[in-house]
């Protein structure tokens, strides 16, 4: 517990990561059999290479902020979201989170093709951490927003991929979470539905939710975020105002191209 209000985590902190590392152990050599494994294990000759997917990450995200996480492919952006959504427990460091976290990374997680749209609303909703009662309240709204109409009572295998995505989006965004994790800006379906998606995302952004947006697209980060963090090779290159970060990112990309 923090006694000092000026030091994070405090009242206005949404996410606080302190020295967070995710280290995978990758075997150095190919091990052909259990026998070989056992012998090497006993003789303590198993060699591993340590791979730092995230290395000593230090960051504080404030409540209500739209915070960008930018970096090249393999920089550790998605791993960072996994740590914050608690899918991955860090090897080292402290994760402190205030609020409900909704990862909008994969729409329709756990959808079952044999269940009806309605049954899938309840299944997907509870998987996202909502209670039956909460889903009861939002059910009609979800169906209306998804525009699947009478298909809501048909098994999901009869849905077009567009309907599937629309239903997934409608469930995932029916509630405004405290902290929203986004891997690229979300919009699904045809042009008309995309506009609806964007409107819904705007609503969530203005409802007091904290948003963490991951992207390798500098323009998206620039146009949506207040502050950002630049990651490279699992390490924080810089954190701060969006202008500085985009400049740093451009430098990094230039350096990468020449060197």
């Amino acid at each position, binding site marked *: *517990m923090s006694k000092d209000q000026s030091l994070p*985590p405090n*009242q*206005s902190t*949404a996410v606080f990561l*302190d020295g967070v590392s995710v280290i*995978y*152990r990758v075997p150095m050599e190919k091990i052909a059999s*259990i026998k070989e494994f056992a012998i090497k294990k006993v003789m303590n000759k198993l060699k591993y290479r340590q791979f730092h997917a995230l290395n000593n990450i230090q960051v504080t995200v404030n*409540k*209500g902020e739209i915070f960008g996480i930018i970096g090249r492919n393999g920089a550790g952006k998605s791993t960072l979201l*996994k740590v914050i*959504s*608690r*899918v*991955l*427990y*860090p090897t080292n*460091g*402290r*994760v*402190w*989170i*205030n*609020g*409900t*976290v909704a*990862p909008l*990374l*994969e729409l329709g*997680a*756990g959808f*079952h093709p*044999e*269940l009806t749209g309605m*049954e899938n609303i*309840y*299944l997907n909703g*509870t*998987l*996202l*951490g*909502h*209670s*039956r009662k909460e889903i009861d309240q939002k059910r009609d709204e979800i169906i209306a927003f998804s525009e699947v109409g009478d298909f809501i009572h048909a*098994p999901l295998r009869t849905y077009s991929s567009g309907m599937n995505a629309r239903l997934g989006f409608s469930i995932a965004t029916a509630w405004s979470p*405290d*902290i929203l994790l986004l891997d690229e800006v979300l919009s699904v379906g045809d042009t008309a539905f995309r506009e609806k998606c964007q409107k819904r995302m705007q609503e969530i952004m203005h409802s*007091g939710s904290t948003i963490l947006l991951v992207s390798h697209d500098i323009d998206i980060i620039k146009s949506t975020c207040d502050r950002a963090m630049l990651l490279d090779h699992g390490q924080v290159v810089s954190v701060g105002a969006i202008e500085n970060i985009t400049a740093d990112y451009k430098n990094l990309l230039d350096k990468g191209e020449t060197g």
Partner: protein
Amino acid sequence: MNIPQYKEIYDSANSPGPAVEEIKAVLRNKDLMAQLIKRDLVTRYKRSVLGVFWSMLNPLGTMIILSLVFSRMFDMRGVYPAYILTNYVAWNFFSQSTQFSLNTTLWGSDLFHKIYIPRTSFILSTVGTGMLNLTFALVPLFLILLITGVSIHLTILFLPLAVLILAAFALGFSLLLSTLVVFFPDVNEFYPVLLTAWMYLTPIIYPETMISDVLNGWLLRLNPLYHLIKIFRLVVFEGVVPSGMEWLVAVIIAVITLTAGWVVFTSSNKRFGYYV
């Protein structure tokens, strides 16, 4: 600026320990289990004509086959089918729950990589589904008890307790197995073999007296399922209330296995993401 108030705080540095944390998470997501059980029941039989009746027909079919094959070997007069079915229903619950738990841990991992869900919810719901299937299987079981003239005894009132003890053991064992399979995937291939061996080492298709003197009786005594299935058989088939000692042994086995399973699984939980 007006600071919004968010309710829950998660702090990895200030945790009540993985075992307690997991219990809290399961309780917070308690509606999830009901949905998962519903999904398993509905989707399992969705495309079949007889649907959920298969939960009743399957054990019945196995009983008929085993009775035809073995009834000449073990002289139990006309009650042999009822004897087998009683044991088999209990055994089937255990073997299916544990095997499905293994599959959930291995193949459910796709979901675990995307969203945070307490993993034990999935194993709990697997055992829950097993209990429901067992309940369905009671219909043909009671029918066979009546037909073979065993009749249904008043001791049947102890059945829920017997099932609960067996379920606690199945849950604990599933958790231990699931932990093991994450680090050693070969367990998944080996377990069906172990199950076959286990079934033949437990008095299910043959009477207990047949092996009661093997290794001075230790073959029976060291087999946890022997004690648990016996309780089930005593109250369903024999019409005998288990002795205090028999209850005690069964409860101790179940509680120890469940506690061990819960602690081992939840404390390894953090490392699961690195393996599967």
